[in-house]
C-alpha cells in the first residue's frame, strides 16, 4: 500500500486537532456551575451564569449560529452601532489598503535612494533607527491633533507602521543588486532611470515584496487596535463594541474573521512574491 501523500495526512491531522479542540470547548462550557440563592433583582444583573449554572462563555455551536447569521446578512446597516460584519471589514480593509499604498509610494522611492547612495544611507539611518521601534499607536494623539480627523488618523497610523519594513527591505534589496548585473547595464550604456526599472527593480523585487508582506501583516495587526481607539467603524471598533455589549460570540466571530482576512492578505502578497521571484 502506498502511503498517502503528506498533504493528505497533514489535512487529516488538522481535522482531528480541530475536532478535539471543538469537543473540549463544548465540554468545557456545557457543564454547570453551582447556582446561588440571591435576591431576584441582583440575579437579573448577574445574568444566566449565576442563576441557571450555565457558562457565560458560548460554546462552538453558539458561535457557529452567530457566524451563520453574519454570513447570511453581512452588509446590513441599522445605525451607527449596528452594522453588518461585512461593512466593518470593508472599512478596515479600505483603511489598510489606503495607508499601505501610501507607504508603498514613499518607501520604495526612498528605499531606492538609500540603497543607491551610501551618503543618504548613512544620513537617514539615525532617523530610521529611532522612528522604527516606535509603536504606531504612539503616533495616534499627534495624528488626531494635527489631522483632526479620526478616520484619516487611522490611515496615517497604518501608513507609518507599514513604512519601515518596506523601506528597510527596499534599501537592502537595492544595495544588494549584483555588481555584474549593474556592469551589464553600464557596458550597454543604459541610463540611470532605465537601469533602475530594468535591472535594479527586478533584481530587488523579491526582497521588496518580502518587506511588503511583513508590512501588510503589521498593518492588519495595528488596524484593530487603531480602530478600537478611534471608533466609529471597522472590525476593531466592532470587537470593542461587542465587548461592551457582552456578546462573546460576536467577539469570537470577529477574532476568526480577523485571522481569515489576515491570512488572505498575506497569501495575496505571497502570490505576488512568487510572480517576481526568479531562479538563479
Amino acid at each position: 500500500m502506498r502511503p498517502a501523500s503528506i498533504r493528505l495526512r497533514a489535512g487529516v491531522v488538522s481535522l482531528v486537532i480541530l475536532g478535539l479542540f471543538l469537543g473540549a470547548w463544548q465540554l468545557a462550557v456545557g457543564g454547570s456551575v453551582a447556582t446561588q440563592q440571591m435576591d431576584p433583582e441582583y440575579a437579573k444583573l448577574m445574568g444566566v451564569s449565576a442563576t441557571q449554572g450555565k457558562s457565560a462563555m458560548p460554546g462552538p455551536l453558539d458561535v457557529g449560529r452567530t457566524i451563520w447569521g453574519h454570513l447570511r446578512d453581512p452588509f446590513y446597516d441599522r445605525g451607527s452601532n449596528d452594522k453588518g460584519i461585512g461593512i466593518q471589514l470593508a472599512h478596515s480593509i479600505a483603511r489598510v489598503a489606503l495607508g499601505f499604498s501610501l507607504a508603498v509610494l514613499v518607501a520604495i522611492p526612498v528605499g531606492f535612494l538609500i540603497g543607491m547612495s551610501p551618503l543618504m544611507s548613512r544620513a537617514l539611518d539615525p532617523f530610521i533607527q529611532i522612528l522604527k521601534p516606535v509603536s504606531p499607536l504612539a503616533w495616534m494623539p499627534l495624528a488626531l491633533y494635527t489631522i483632526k480627523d479620526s478616520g484619516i488618523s487611522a490611515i496615517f497610523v497604518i501608513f507609518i507602521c507599514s513604512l519601515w519594513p518596506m523601506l528597510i527591505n527596499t534599501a537592502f534589496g537595492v544595495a544588494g543588486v549584483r555588481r555584474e548585473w549593474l556592469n551589464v547595464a553600464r557596458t550597454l550604456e543604459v541610463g540611470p532611470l532605465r537601469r533602475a526599472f530594468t535591472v535594479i527593480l527586478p533584481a530587488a523585487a523579491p526582497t521588496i515584496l518580502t518587506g511588503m508582506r511583513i508590512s501588510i501583516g503589521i498593518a492588519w495587526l495595528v488596524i484593530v487596535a487603531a480602530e478600537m481607539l478611534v471608533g466609529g467603524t471597522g472590525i476593531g471598533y466592532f470587537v470593542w463594541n461587542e465587548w461592551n455589549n457582552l456578546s462573546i460570540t460576536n467577539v469570537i466571530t470577529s477574532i476568526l474573521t480577523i485571522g481569515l482576512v489576515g491570512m488572505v492578505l498575506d497569501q495575496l502578497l505571497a502570490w505576488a512574491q512568487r510572480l517576481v521571484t526568479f531562479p538563479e
Partner: protein
Amino acid sequence: MSAVDDRLISIEGIAKRYPAPGGGETTIFSDLWLRVGRGEFVCVIGHSGCGKTTVLNILAGLDAPSGGAVVVDGREIAGPSLDRAVIFQGHALLPWKTVLGNVAYAVSSRWRRAPAAEVEARARAAIAKVGLAGSENKRPSELSGGMKQRVGIARALAIEPKILLMDEPFSALDALTRGTLQEEARRLCRETGQTVYMITHDVDEAIYLADKIVLMTNGPGARIAEIVENPLPPDRRQGEIHHDPNYYALRNHLIDFLVSRSTTFRDNPPAGWTAKNPPVVRPGGAAEARPRPLREGEVDRRQAAAG
C-alpha cells in the same frame, strides 16, 4: 596622438594604484603600453593578481586608471561604451529575463529607437549564430553553463561592437564544452573580423585563439614582458595544432614564461627592454622544429630577426 593607422586600441602608460593598508600605495601595474590592431585577436596571460582583469575593466570603462590613458579608435575613452562589449567570466545574464529577453535588452540598448520587431529579429539572429535557436524562451536557470556563456556571446555580438572584451570566458566550463565554445568563438570572430581582447590563464586556449599573446609579469608592479606572435597558420584546427612544427616552441615559450620568467622579469628585465615598446617575439620558425627553451637575453636577438 595623431594615430591614423590600423591601431584600434592604444593603451598609453596606464597605471593602477590602491592605498596600501598602513599608508602608502600599492602599485598593481604602472607604465603599461599596448597597441591592438583592428581585427586582431589578442590574449593576455599572466598569473592571478597581475592586474589583467583590471586592465580589461579599464578598457571596458568599468574602472578608471590611476594614470595614463586608453585611446580607442582615436579617442580617449571615458567610461563604458556600446563600442566595447564585454563577455563576463560568470556570464552575468539577467536571470529574470529569457534568453531572447537578455539578448534583446542589449539590442534595444544599442538601437534605442528601433521598432520591437527589428530588435527581436536581431536578437533571434544573434541567438541562432551561437547555435541556440529554439531556446529563445528559456530562462538562464534552465540552461547549462556552456549554453549560458553562448547567450553571453550572443548578447555581446548582437550589438556589433568594435571591440570584444572577454574575461576568462570559458574558465568555468568543462573541457569538452570549452573546446567547442573556443572553436565557435574563433569562427565567429574570424567571420566578422572582430577585434578581441581576451584574458586567459589557459596556455592552449591562447595558442588556439590568439594572433598575439601578451605576457604579463606577476604583480604588484606588473609589466608587459613581451608580445608573442602566434606562428601557427590562421586556418588552424583545434584538434590538430599540436602537430604543427611550431606548436611546442610556442607552448614551451609560454610555459617557461609563466613558470619562471614571470617572477624574475620585474627585477631583471632584459637589456634594452622598455615599457613603451615591449619586444615582439615569434617562437619557432623554420630553422628550429623543437627549440630548447629560450633564455633571457635571447629575446632581443629574436625580436631583431622577426621585426
